[in-house]
């Protein structure tokens, strides 16, 4: 029979340690492949007071501004800018300002034409309050939803009005021409710290459904992301 010396025992322990090292290596390797699941850097809302903050974001019809070094086809994807990972302070009034540069795509689910969950259940579109938008005048939605079993649920959904299809290019952002944006503002309150996800529900991903829901619509960093309520 084989001798079972200390060398043998050390060998078992050593192989287990090496094995867990391999697991760690594969873990880090998988996380480093950006094409596999891309989480951009966190973008924090600007604090405007002890219990208030403003989050200023944009939606573009392509990725030249925010993902300038992306290859095909991502460079042509619609996207939220400057990031899709937001951070806002807890127990505060959050004002969200969205500069919307994109044209409309018809909603497939009329549910999302209403404004829900904001203060006063309205959004300000270029200064005018609106509580719902016609389903074919919507370019994107910003819909914030809670994780399963959330103790402090938040739900906010606003349709973002699209610019007309034939609008001329009037402004330049980082050297890229775009039409004059619609400025959409709304407010909501946060509770204690937590994590929420948000997502666009207008099939703006290119092509008719179900393809409109793929591509940027299914990719964090473009039309889906997280909103963390945390102290900072």
């Amino acid at each position, binding site marked *: 029979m084989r001798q079972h010396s200390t060398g043998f025992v050390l060998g*078992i322990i050593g192989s287990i340690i090496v094995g867990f090292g391999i697991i760690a290596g594969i873990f880090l390797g*998988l996380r480093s492949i950006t094409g596999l699941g891309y*989480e951009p850097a966190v973008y924090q809302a600007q604090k405007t007071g002890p219990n208030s903050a403003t989050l200023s974001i944009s939606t573009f019809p392509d990725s030249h501004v925010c993902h300038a070094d992306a290859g095909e086809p991502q460079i042509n994807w619609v996207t939220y800018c400057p990031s899709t990972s937001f951070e806002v302070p807890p127990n505060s009034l959050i004002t969200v300002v969205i500069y919307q540069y994109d044209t409309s795509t018809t909603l497939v689910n009329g549910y999302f034409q209403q404004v829900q969950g904001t203060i006063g259940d309205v959004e300000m579109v270029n200064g005018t309050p609106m509580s719902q938008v016609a389903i074919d005048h919507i370019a994107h939605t910003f819909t914030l939803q809670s994780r399963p079993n959330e103790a402090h649920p938040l739900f906010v959904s606003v349709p973002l009005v699209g610019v007309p299809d034939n609008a001329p290019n009037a402004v330049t952002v980082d050297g890229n021409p775009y039409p004059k944006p619609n400025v959409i503002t709304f407010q909501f309150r946060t509770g204690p710290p937590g994590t929420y996800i948000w997502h666009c529900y207008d099939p703006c991903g290119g092509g008719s459904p179900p393809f409109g829901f793929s*591509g940027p619509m*299914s990719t964090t960093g473009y039309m889906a992301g997280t909103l963390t309520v945390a102290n900072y």
Partner: protein
Amino acid sequence: MTEGKTIEGESRRTNLMQMLFPSVVSGVVLGVIGAVVFGVVVGLITQQQNQDAQLVAAYIGWTLFFFIGIGAFEGITTWGFARRELTLEEEHKLAGKGQGLWRYFRYTTDHKVVGMQYLALTLVLFFFGSMGAFMIRLEQSVPGAIFFNPQTYNTIVGMHGILMIVATIIMVSGPFGNFILPIMIGARDMAFPRLNALSFWLVFAAAPVFFSTLAFGGFPTGWTGYAPLAVQEMTPGMDAYCFTIILFATSTTVAAMNIVTTVLVMRTKGMTWGRLPIFVWGVILSVILGLTAFPSFLISQVMVLMDRVFQTSFFIATFGGSNWLYEHLFWFMGHPEVYVIALPAMATAAEVTAVFARKPVFGYRLLVSGLIGVCVLSTVVWGHHLYTSGANTALDGPYMLDTELISIPTGLFFLGMIGTFWRGKIWMTVPILFVAGMLVNFVIGGVTGIYLADLPTDEILHGGMFVTAHFHFTLVGSMVFGFFAGFYYWFPKMLGKRLDPVLGRIHFWLFEIGFLGTFLSLFYAGLLGEPRWSANVAPMFAVPNLIASLFAILIAASVFTLVYNVIITLARGERAEANEWGGKTLEWTVPTPVPLENFEHLPVVTSLPYNYGSPEPVTEKATGIAIDMPLQTQSED
């Protein structure tokens, strides 16, 4: 002197060229070139507008040129252009004669080489599949998608699934079906040696195609690849999955034809169907089932690729297709497929138990009937995967009947196994430990299948972790344990060395305890209602998931113990005897290492290889098999 040096240098260069070409090295090099060329050409034709077309073309180029590079077409080109068949010497060279270790890296036709190649590939696939499993358990150990982005997680889940499915399908029929089975039936090789090599290298060629999905954005559908999500997915990583399946299904079809023909035609004299070892029954029934089922899988993936590349609409409702079509095509394969996995492992367990209990198989005919019953019934039960799909419920009752009926032939298997153990003289080796673990896990797995087969309870459980725990208990807890029983049992015959039994026991106990802890917790999580494929585990399921992840650490330790065992055994293990365990099947009558043509003289069989405890006079070599020498060789090729 200079002349001699030049000649020497030249012959070294020619030797290197002869070694590398044809071999897997030349295959890979040419395959990569082919992939790039095809991808670029199609890219030019489609003006970069159709990424899926480019990628699929690249995969076609890879496959075609890989096989050219590895020398797969040698026989065909000789027949077509040189207008002759291969000579005996060329065939021997193809079978790896005189090539040493290089024969494992070539298109070698010897069934023993193919068996070893399959064994190595199976272990590698299990290793990477396990890595995926540990990533999954890591992500699910705490609520929230903290460790991986949900998109990454979905790809990991899909990769774990397919790697394990491929590995478990080939795990017994590949290594042991190829290496051991021909010897066990008294043949010199398989019926179609070149197709044998083809079946292996097709799976090998599928591996880079599959892993390339990581570079192209992964795939979000899990291993089932459900359309319409599969068609909707924009990133081309989905095509890698579809193409892998096409290659793999082709491989299993080729291998199945080979095994069926070999067993039908090349059994040695005296080996009637009534004297066939149980292992052979298990493998042949499994491959016949695979022949029926896998073409459906293949065609479903071809259709998905056509939907993606050519915008056809097989599965897209808005353009007139139906997602239920995909579900039927997939599950018509998907259900028999688990029995393709199960039958060889169950048969291996029966084979191993007879040897280590020193008893004949309890009810050979009953056991074989059980295997046949499982094989036949499994083709008509796939509808139970569609109970809650919303499709017409008219056939739900009959499907429920069929599915519950499978418990009867499965029960015959248990009767046979328990009866073989009962009143035996049980030698507690590592293979028997794995068989015992298999039986314990299979009972739990089989019983939990009852809840899933029953329509009303399936409504609660479908798509939840209960299903996951059930199929892990059956596929992993039973069938992979059956594989390991066969692995520890046949390792001395295949590699000539003895695996360390202490490490083997550690492997078993770590695996069994870790496995039970992990999946019993997941059963509980499933009862509570946890959905499958959860990158983000809800807080109400956090505790069972954390417990499952902690037990999974034990499974990880068991994997590494096995790796350590294999490495040190290969490096400096003890030599094994030709009949290490005292088995009576034909493979234990040949020396180790097994000579190229297996038998010097083909044996004649007079009884089942299970006549332990028989009062009949012991025949030559105490194997119960009379060896007739000399005799006419079989006129197989």
